[in-house]
């Protein structure tokens, strides 16, 4: 037997879960915010080394990654709106595109990291140690921050695939889309964080 255990008059369960999601997003912002502070502190101490090391990263890679994520964010938004308007096919199509772009981003990251590792920028290797403290810090931060971000993309990807199948099974529909909408917020957050990571590592020269 399912009873509404809250029965506060006028209380919308959807509104409640969305509020919870926003609070979680606050926590995530502070999580990355702390890392941005670490980055700023070390950059201000080693400006020359950070500038040199920044040149090792390819601007085009950063730009393409950004475009990929921005498109995935757009398709995610379209998909959520489509399911609210009961357009299942459009929703599945756009969500599918989001999945593809998320995978593309991760693959691109994989190859980018591979190149960096081949060049000898992996932390705790002799080639990196010879380059001095500033470069060590830059690439330490690079791997940690983009790694933590990629982890978020990966978790997000797993969720999107789960939601994709829920939509196919009609479990998520125009009546019941709240989980999907809240997850959409998470995805936009992850993209937003990349928008900050992109200039920190690729644009500041």
């Amino acid at each position: 037997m399912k009873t509404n255990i809250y029965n506060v008059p006028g209380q919308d369960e959807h509104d409640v879960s969305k509020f919870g999601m926003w609070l979680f997003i606050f926590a995530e912002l502070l999580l990355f915010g702390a890392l941005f502070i670490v980055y700023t502190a070390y950059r201000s101490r080693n400006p020359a080394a950070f500038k040199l090391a920044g040149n090792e990263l390819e601007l085009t890679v950063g730009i393409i990654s950004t475009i990929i994520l921005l498109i995935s964010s757009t398709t995610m938004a379209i998909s959520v709106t489509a399911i609210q308007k009961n357009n299942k096919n459009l929703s599945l199509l756009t969500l599918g595109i989001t999945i593809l772009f998320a995978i593309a981003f991760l693959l691109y990251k994989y190859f980018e990291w591979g190149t960096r590792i081949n060049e000898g920028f992996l932390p705790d290797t002799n080639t990196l140690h010879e380059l001095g403290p500033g470069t060590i810090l830059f690439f330490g931060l690079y791997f940690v921050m983009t790694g933590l971000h990629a982890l978020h993309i990966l978790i997000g990807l797993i969720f999107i695939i789960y939601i994709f199948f829920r939509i196919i099974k009609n479990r998520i529909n125009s009546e019941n889309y709240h989980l999907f909408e809240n997850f959409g917020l998470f995805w936009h957050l992850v993209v937003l964080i990349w928008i900050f990571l992109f200039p920190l590592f690729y644009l500041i020269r």
Partner: protein
Amino acid sequence: MSESIVSQQHVSYLKEESRFKGRLKNLYSWICTTDHKRIGLLYLFVITIFFIVGAIQGLLMKLELMAPGANIMGSESFSVLSTLHGIIMVFAVAIPGLTAVFGNFFLPIMLGTNNVAFPKLNLVSWYVYIIGIIFILLSQFGYYSGFDSGWTFNIPYGILINANILPVVIGIFLIGLSSIALGINFIVTVHRYRAQGMSWFKMPLFPWSLYAAAWIQLLATPVLVIALFMIFAESTMAIGMLDPMLGGDPTLYQHLFWIYARPAIYIMILPAMGIISEIIPTFSQKTIFSYRTTVVALLAIAFLGFFVWGQHMVTSGIGDRALSLFSFFALIITVPMIVVVLNWLGTMHKGSLNITTPFYWAVSFIFIFLIAGLTGLMFGSLATNVYVHRTQFEIAHFHYIVFGSVSFAFMGAIHYWFPKIFGRMYNKKWANIGFLVFFVGFNLLFLPMFMLGYQGLPGHFYDYPPGFQPGNLASSTGAIILILGALIIIINLIRNARFGRKCDDMNPWGGKTLEWTISTPPPSVNFDKLPVITNDPYDYN
């Protein structure tokens, strides 16, 4: 059907029919529950166990310090023991203590609703917390030597020694996640599930204090997570951020750690203040003196708490200008604290006092809290802070604020709400004896440490020059008395939770908040019909 639903709703939450089958059905009905009251008791169970574990560790250290030289352990075991004592007591007992136990149990009831906003998440938080504790305990096994860097990790020492730092880091990380989830749950519950008519300024003070603490849990814990993440990455991949040899700066770690750990003290203190603000009006039968300033003061403490972390770094070389600013905020934050204390005294003034066990705890809380606050001022002003930094004085102050305030509020809360939670009454005579022994033991344990520290005895060492023995002997005697008091209290409570005199009285103390309007013990569904609030809280007129 409808009749059975009605009768179901009046069954006590302790006796609710299990939806599971088989021999272990009662166990399952507890560990798979989403009832906030049962989850509160699950936390109470675990926290009691780890409080006893931590207390025994503390007692062992105090026994070692009874006489100079290595008596029952050497330097290494002492450091490992003090580290484990700190980590268990801070992360597994004190931080979740009041919020997770009494917050879970009473927040929804006091707001006039039937559960927290996300009941499943609430249960998940408990499991994550348990797994976190298991990881912390795992650090004691394995190839490497015991982990002995202290509960603040003392980077870079913590990563340079060959010790099991990873399980500790993962364990605290998980407890942090659980804390964030609990914070989200409480904030949403307070915002969205207050009873009809309960506007913000009609909310009782314990929910207010939980709300303020929940914001700290939500906003400060991610910073701790990043500090732990850096330790993790440093000790597995040598990324250089914490290692001075690779260009890293351990001071940065200290900043991040204390940006969390300083407000975390208010995660513990705010609910303690909230509980005392519940007990004192009930036992004075009088409206709280100046409700609104109390609320504003609680929120101000939570807010200002974010700007005082530098107090812990006076000897880390962060610059005089920064330290002066931190000193300013550390002195300012005592103002809202004093406001709350004065409001408590004002509430008692000309009230009709019901002088019994919970009231004893509440009044002695004020005593303990004042000693903690006044010695805290010595850390607020820079010159004295440098003088007593890292001495026994600091340890004594820390224990007055963290152990003293939290345990006195906890004991007050459990003696206040015990009849409501278990539907039985404890033995009042033994409860009072336990209180007296605990109070004497506590002060005998920590007051001499102020003197010792002021005379220059540093903390965290197993040995000391013979001249310091009288103070240490008194302190160790206090530890034994304290443990005795704790045992009397715990045995009295556990015994009477099962076999005590039945207490069906809905409102044994004459309280005015909503938990006293439902049957004792509470039914599994708190309110058949949700209350509509018209009065101010603590309306005794």
